[in-house]
């Protein structure tokens, strides 16, 4: 057999039918539903007179439209209607729902790995572009639109073109204060927000092997900001240890069989990729975005680009547009820019290790006057574990607000917004125009950098905080 990559091995195993030279009908192993699109898809299916093909492979949880205020106070009327519809329609179809306040509820890309629903070698889809997150466990996971969502509900299969393959190798030892978030932002800065379009990206190299699983999930989460709808990391012993004993992971003899199969998944040594990129992680410093695309990123000790110094007219105009929206001066240092909001949360950075990293910076310090800072754990389980080790107290004593799990201010679907013109440092994934609310200004950064910025009241270099 010719040598194959991780992507090719998983892909080949899921082909139900070859539809053309480069398009296959693929089996879908896990379908995750959330409150924004889940009930709509189930109702769409019903209106066509169809049934869910495999409800036992479909799982649902509310995350997008739910209030994250204590006690869920303030969930909008429409958010409540969506939750009610999700309850009714999943029950009618026999789909497991991880409901509010139950262990298992949370951001759909946090709970999949946490519950062991997401497994190496599995195909996983969800009506959300950050489904690529689950690739951190060695799964083939990607976001789909509403029509494809209905298709999966009806058939447990999806028509997909085989993507090109890219390998991004992160080599070297990660410097102190630099995190998985900084690694992936640096790559986006290097190859651009369309650098991965049309590709499935495999992240490899010594720095990826050294990362804990939660860091790998963060790396894969931002694949879509690279333009790639699929990102993945080969499973290894760390992956198996992470999954062992999780509620939906295989157990006993089945576990041994699964691990044996998973060991065959990594790319063959001589597998060929359509594109290779190498990143020297020892040169990466904590990253922060300055503009309106994740590719608008610099090191926190860097300078905001000066349009006057850019020759290419299209690129100059793009930088001018971004700076005008962001209310920033080209040529000035990014550090020291005053901030109004800090948001620690989202499917990118709301897992226990993220909260620990932020708490380590916040411990014994105070959020600067005039800054509102939120911590929104990624799931009910993350919340309970964080409380058990006292992280909530550290945050509250430092002046952060400790909230209920959900997507919250990452995309503001639940009405939790940064006010117009205000500036936020956010651990989320998109600094798009209006993403955190109309005319809100977003700077993406790691949890440690975000916590440091909350304390400083301005964009701050966590390496200068003396911990």
């Amino acid at each position, binding site marked *: 057999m010719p040598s194959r990559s991780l992507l090719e091995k998983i892909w080949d195993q899921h082909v*139900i039918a070859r*539809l*053309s030279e480069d398009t296959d*009908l693929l*089996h879908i192993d896990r379908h995750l539903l959330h409150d924004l699109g889940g009930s*709509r898809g189930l109702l769409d299916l019903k209106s066509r007179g*169809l049934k869910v*093909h*495999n409800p*036992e492979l479909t799982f649902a949880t509310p995350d*997008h439209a739910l209030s994250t205020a204590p006690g869920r106070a303030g969930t*909008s009327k*429409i*958010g409540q*209607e969506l939750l009610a519809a999700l309850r009714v329609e999943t029950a009618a179809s026999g789909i497991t729902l991880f409901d509010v306040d139950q262990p298992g509820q949370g951001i759909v890309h946090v709970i999949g790995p946490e519950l062991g629903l997401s*497994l190496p070698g599995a195909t996983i889809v969800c009506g*959300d*572009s950050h489904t690529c997150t689950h690739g951190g466990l060695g799964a083939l996971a*990607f*976001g*789909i*639109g*509403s*029509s*494809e969502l*209905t298709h999966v509900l*009806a*058939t447990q*299969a999806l*028509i997909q073109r085989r*993507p090109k393959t890219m390998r991004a190798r992160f080599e070297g030892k990660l410097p102190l204060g630099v995190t998985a978030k900084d690694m992936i932002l640096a790559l986006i800065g290097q190859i651009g*927000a*369309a650098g991965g*379009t049309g590709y499935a990206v495999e992240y490899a190299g010594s720095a990826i092997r050294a990362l804990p699983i939660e860091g790998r999930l963060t790396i894969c989460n931002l694949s*879509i900001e690279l*333009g790639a*709808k699929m990102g993945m990391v080969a499973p290894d012993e760390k992956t198996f240890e992470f999954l062992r004993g999780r*509620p*939906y*992971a*295989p*157990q006993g003899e*089945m576990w041994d*069989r699964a691990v044996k*199969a998973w060991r065959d998944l990594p790319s063959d040594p001589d597998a060929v990729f359509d594109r290779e990129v190498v990143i020297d992680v020892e040169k990466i410093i904590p990253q922060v975005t300055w503009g309106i*695309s994740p*590719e608008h990123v610099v090191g926190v000790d860097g300078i905001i680009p000066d349009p006057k110094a850019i020759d290419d007219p299209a690129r100059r*105009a*793009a930088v001018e547009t971004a700076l005008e929206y962001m209310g920033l001066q080209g040529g000035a240092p990014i550090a020291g820019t005053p901030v109004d909001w800090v948001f620690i949360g989202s499917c990118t950075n709301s897992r226990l290790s993220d909260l620990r990293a932020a708490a380590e910076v916040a411990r014994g310090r105070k959020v600067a006057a005039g800054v509102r800072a939120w911590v929104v754990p990624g799931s009910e389980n993350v919340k309970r574990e964080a409380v058990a080790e006292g992280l909530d107290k550290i945050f509250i004593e430092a002046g952060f607000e400790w909230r209920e799990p959900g997507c919250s201010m990452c*995309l*503001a*679907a639940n*009405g939790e917004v940064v006010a*117009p013109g205000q500036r936020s440092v956010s651990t989320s994934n*998109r600094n*798009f*125009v*209006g*993403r955190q609310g*109309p005319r809100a200004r977003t700077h993406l950064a790691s949890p440690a950098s975000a916590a440091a910025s909350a304390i400083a009241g301005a964009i701050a270099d966590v390496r200068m905080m003396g911990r």
Partner: protein
Amino acid sequence: MPKPFDKLTATAAPIMRSNIDTDVIIRIERLVGNSIRGTLGKWAFGSLRYLPDGSENPDFILNREPYREAEILVTGPNFGCGSSREGAVWSLQERGIRAIIGSGFGDIFFANCFQNGILPVIVDKAVVDQLAADIEATQGAGKVSIDLEAQTIVSPSGARHSFEIDPRRREGLLKGLDEVALTLQRDDEIHAFQASDRAARPWIHSTRTSA
């Protein structure tokens, strides 16, 4: 089921900024709800189309004649990047857009277009730039023609450009095929796959036993 697409001659509006994401095409709060279809056209490109006071931004191209009637967009690189929200395509469709010509699109947005009978055409950036210049030279009066069967675009200047498209997707658009119905014709194959896969990877299929 998508409406078939074969030929179109229409006003085309160049929107050449790079990386126009799906949040910019349609804001999330317009998409919260189960009865949103039919309400989205007026919110397409909301942050570009309207000023903070809610009035129309006269500088935005789709607010100007004759571009107001545009059925074709000519777009900058990486149009439709970001979120998987199919509402981005629905909002453009409800605004009257039937085809989008650009040098590259977000992968999920691109797939969503075909699901709704919208034709996304990928051509070289030089061709996109030339088309935009030709349109602007006529102040938008010159129409752009797209022939999906022949895989050609004709610019207002008369210049003809050919484009490549996946033959399966082309056929799907030409006939307005319903993918769900087509795949369900293969339900026996799906069941046969699941039976053999259950033997090979039982941990994927027996999700109710371990929890």
